[in-house]
């Protein structure tokens, strides 16, 4: 009976040992580490990822507040005319570049109560065609069509996205600097500039490494 008990005990110990054979992979963080957002000046243990909607919202909110606060806008007697110039993307992330300026413009239009006006240069071809139709008399005009009424810009608003990437066995880290500036169209002076920086890092699941 003692022998039977010993054999059964041995079997009970041996069975789990057999089943655990090969389970020790030696892989660190097998589940990966989810992406976490960090302060730009915080040192990460690995590196990050790309431009996301929360970044867009945070950055454009900050830029819109900044533009509205400068004396050239806040104290202007006549609402300055601003033209948006496409953002330049120097990061490793392909992005919809227009979306930044579109949101800044809509934020400014919403919050400025008419203190700034944006010139719709995207519509220029359509507007010119319409003006030519008026000049040729093909369509009616409510004002003298030969007088140039397209407004020139007082300021240009544009931006640049720049990035730094680190990748190693611990993961990927991306730092992105979003900088925007308002340039006086007459003097070329930069009357306002502001930037935001976001750093992200993550490590994918071991199954993808």
């Amino acid at each position, binding site marked *: 009976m003692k022998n039977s008990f010993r054999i059964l005990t*041995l079997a009970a110990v041996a*069975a789990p040992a057999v089943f655990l054979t090969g*389970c020790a992979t030696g892989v660190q963080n097998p589940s990966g580490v989810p992406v976490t957002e960090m302060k730009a000046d915080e040192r990460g243990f690995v590196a990050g990822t790309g431009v996301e909607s929360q970044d867009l919202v945070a950055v454009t909110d900050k830029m819109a507040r900044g533009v509205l606060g400068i004396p050239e806008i806040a104290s202007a007697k006549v609402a300055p005319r601003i033209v948006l110039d496409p953002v330049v993307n120097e990061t490793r*992330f*392909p992005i919809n570049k227009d979306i930044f300026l579109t949101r800044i413009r809509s934020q400014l239009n919403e919050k400025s109560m008419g203190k700034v006006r944006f010139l719709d240069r995207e519509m220029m071809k359509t507007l010119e065609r319409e003006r030519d139709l008026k000049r040729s008399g093909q369509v009616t005009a409510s004002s003298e069509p030969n007088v140039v009424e397209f407004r020139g810009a007082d300021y240009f608003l544009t931006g640049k996205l720049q990035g730094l990437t680190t990748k190693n066995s611990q993961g990927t880290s991306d730092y992105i600097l979003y900088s925007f500036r308002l340039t006086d169209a007459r003097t070329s002076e930069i009357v306002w500039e502001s930037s935001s920086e976001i750093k992200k890092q993550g490590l*994918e699941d071991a*199954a*993808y490494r």
Partner: protein
Amino acid sequence: MLLRVQLLRRRFTATLVVVGLIAFTGCATVPDRPQVIVTGDAVVDGNAQRAAAPAKDRALWDFRVAASALRAANPAEAKLRLDEALPLIGGILANDAEAKRARGLFSAETTKTFIGEPYERVMAYYYRGLLYWRDGQPDNARACYRSGQLIDSDAEAVDNKSDYVLLDYLDGFASAKLGGDGSDAFARAQANAKGKTLPPYDPAANVLIFADYGRGPRKYSGGEYGEQLKFFTKDSAAYSATLAVNGETVVLPAYDDLNFQATTRGGRVMDHILAGKAVFKRNTDVVGNVALVGAAIAADNAYGRRRRPDGTIETYGNRDAQAAAVALGAIGLLSKLASAATTPKADIRMWDNLPQRLSFAALRLGPGEYPATLEFQDAAGSTLPGLTQTLKIQVEPADRDTVIFLSELKP
């Protein structure tokens, strides 16, 4: 005594039944995959396959359809498919339930969402880059080339990290076109060009030719249980290409080779996991064999016969041998079942319509339509018969570059 023997027999039978039930737990039927009607159009068929495929295989079909669409001069479709795939392959896939299962002993690696090996992901960015450039966004194209080069930085050997020639070359070229300085990227590209001299950047060049030729690498599984991811590579006949247009011959040498890129990554972390699974499968199989043989021997000694004093023969049970037979039988059966259920096979889902060689050239052409002839040459420089293509290049009078994609491969 006889009662005890019967009891042990019953226990042994009950153990077998329970083990059998456990083994078949989870053998739920999988719903049939919708049938796909093949039309012969690679884009239509690919999209139909994509729609029928499980969500984990969507990116695979996105890749395949994008390549077919590019070759079928359907850039809108290629863009659509790549834009579906890029957020997935460019993100960080962590805490993913399917990936966790793929790492488990009893699920195949193919359980995980397909994002491809680095050379496949690089090609998704490469193709998306040329489409961005075509849309007048060289900075977004540059972003794609930078992401591609970063993906390739995973290679084990230092010399093989981020060593795509064209990704750096085009990164610098985009910078030069945008009025920046592309010299650093050019120097990196030249350093990886293996003796080829790269043409200097011409920011005034307005026609960009992206060409690819040859058949790319194919995956297969090796090792005792197919746990090793391997690549079948065959040097394609086309070693170089030339494009005759507007009275000049533009040389399109092979700057990058996907066969080389696929086979120089080195080991994956997943390879260690699969190797562990293979060890488990082998060990449980061996233990199962040994235990079952032991159980058979023990069972052979479980009962004996002896003569009674009155001369009759009685059957008696050897309790130790019976217990050993039951225990070893259970271990053997469980081990064999565990071995059979372990799936160490490597994931060999592949982007199967990739080219082998990549080339690029930039030239200046005024607006208008140009007849052109594309020829491919073998290693000796002789033109390969049957591969010549005649085409028309339409240079738009626009403020953006004209991007032409040429391929030896059919859609």
